[in-house]
């Protein structure tokens, strides 16, 4: 699947990358596994959201809204399946995140670490807000932040910083189209 996207505002050509599907699936599985494993050894790593970071990475890399939403849906549903809640909560939120992340990636150059950090920081809150809203609307659960506001900011910042390094690592697996 090749998607050539150009920013319409400044008419700059944006590079489109693709990742080997097997590697992509493997990376997604690793992210889900680590999300379940790491807190067992290091409880503080429960604040990290590796599936979200992987979703954003592939959405920004492929710059395809369809690809982004499907990747987001797949990772979200897998995350739901391994949890104890209803299946679809993370699927919906990550579908939306994947769609808009790919939309954003098709408009701005997201290879810069600073931009990546800002994007991840913003999408962390988008993801969290969507999840809470869906939980409130669909499941009638109270909207309660898992952390205090200050702590949630810190968690978002940590995820953003981690995303910078993670994306740099995952950039090795992408190939320019």
């Amino acid at each position, binding site marked *: 699947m090749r998607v050539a996207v150009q920013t319409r505002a400044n008419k700059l050509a944006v590079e489109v990358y693709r990742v080997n599907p097997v590697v992509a699936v493997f990376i997604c*599985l690793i992210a*889900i*596994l680590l999300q*379940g*494993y790491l807190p067992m050894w290091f409880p503080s790593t429960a604040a990290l959201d590796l599936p979200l970071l992987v979703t954003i990475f592939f959405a920004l890399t492929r710059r395809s*809204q*369809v690809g982004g*939403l*499907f990747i987001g*849906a797949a990772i979200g*549903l*897998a995350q*739901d*399946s*391994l949890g104890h809640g*209803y*299946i*679809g*909560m993370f*699927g*919906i939120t990550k*579908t*939306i995140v994947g*769609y808009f992340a790919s939309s954003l990636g098709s408009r701005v150059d997201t290879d810069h670490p600073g931009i990546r950090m800002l994007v991840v920081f913003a999408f962390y809150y988008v993801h969290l807000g969507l999840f809470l809203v869906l939980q409130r609307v*669909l*499941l009638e659960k109270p909207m309660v932040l898992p952390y205090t506001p200050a702590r949630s900011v810190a968690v978002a910042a940590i995820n953003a910083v981690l995303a910078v390094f993670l994306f740099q690592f995952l950039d090795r697996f992408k190939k320019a189209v």
Partner: protein
Amino acid sequence: MDTLFSRYRNVMLLVAVLFIQLVMLAFQVKRERDVPLIRVWAVSVITPIEKVSSGTVRAVVGTWQNYLDLRHTRQENQTLSEEVHRLKLNAYQLHDEAQEARRLEALLDFKRESQSEMAAARVIGSSASETSRVLFIDRGSEAHIRRNMAVITPDGIVGKVYRVFHGASQVLVITDPDSGVGALLADSRLHGPLRGVGGFFCQMRYIPNEEKVELGDRVFTSGEDMIYPKGLPIGTVSSIRPGPVFKEITVQPSAKLNRLEEVLVVLRGADQEIPDKPEPAPAPAAAEEVPPAMLPGPIGKPGSEMTGPAAAPAAKPREGKLMPVATQPGETDADRLMLAAREKAAAAAAARATGAARPATPPAAGQTPAPGTAPAGTQALPAVKKTAPGTTPPGTATATPGMPGTATGAPGAAGAKKTTSPAVTAPAGTSVRGAIPRVGERVPGSPAGDTPASAGAPATKKTAAPARKPAGTLATPPGDNAVNTPAGASSNGAAKKPAAPRATPPAGTPADPNAPPAAPKKKNTADPQNPRPEVEPR
């Protein structure tokens, strides 16, 4: 339409995907049912990877920890080995201390149950030669240890104090050839001296060949030696051989003489009854009761007359150990006998209440009250109960006449000859036995190292010779055929003829193995109706 679809394709796909997930979510919420298919798929995909990754991680971690990261392992191993050695030593020490605590607990129990006054001592050494069997204990004159005090354990007697030093004492073990103990066989009541033969055995002597002795018979102290209180276990018969006249009976001491660590020194001995053969395993509930077998000696046997309050309180049986009979503090066999006799006399008096005959014991004909004794005709028996040990006034005899090395008893005047202080002589009107300080009992105020106050021959323990009693004391009338007086015991005729020499020389005195007794003493236990008729009143 195609243009619209192609223009909004992505949005429509997003809406479609979201709608599908919303429907799925609504289905779960509405029906309260899961979507197992997705979960099964997800789990089926994830869990194998989890297993592989988990196994890999564990293998890597295990390899690292068990094979690679072995820094300081040798040092840690050495430290742990040292700690293991230290803990082992601690465990051994604690084990030894626990065993010592158990032994001391047994000693304490024994000391509590016994009526004798004892002092615990620790064995600190033994003789340097094989020819002399002596021990050293860590108590001496400062602990009021005196020569010829008995040294015992709950299992049996050990020996006697031979020499006393300050802070230590030398104990002559009963297996030493120079040692001697007045002993009796528990079942046949045969008396005889016990001599050490070296090694770990003793030999009981002067038991005629015609007497029946069996292997395993229990041997107890008879109290005749004035050192060991009566009723202490000595051991069991381990071999019997007929000799020219007397049996050669080897006795194995019941005390673990080669493993002694703590012993008890009898400061003030009290006679105890010889227990019957220990029952195999008494029921716990029944153990609290007082079985007839635990009652004192032949008195407590079934069918015996002595089943009254005098014999009621008895100690719990201790298999193979001393069984103190706790009737009353300081009460002896004779006290119990006298008490029973008094009850019997009272019953006889009640039966004769209508008659003019006096129930009181008449004074012996031709006897005159000794100075300081009660007048003739005084009822003797009631005084027994009032008589506490150590309150005996002078004027009563306590010893058997004719015994070398013992105080000679003479009617009325014996108290003057005896070394007993006024505090321990019986009041007038009491029986002789009641006035006798118990065997091994020390006379208060007597000089240290004195022989025990009741230094009479064994016959004095079981007999109450009228000849040695003041007038008015409990007397067995002449011609009482029921009295089965053993040889050497002073009976009714003892006043007229001297008692025969004792077969058993006191162990406290140098025993002469070549001096056979005139006749070995055998207590009368055949007639249960007359267990101890020597003191049986009319």
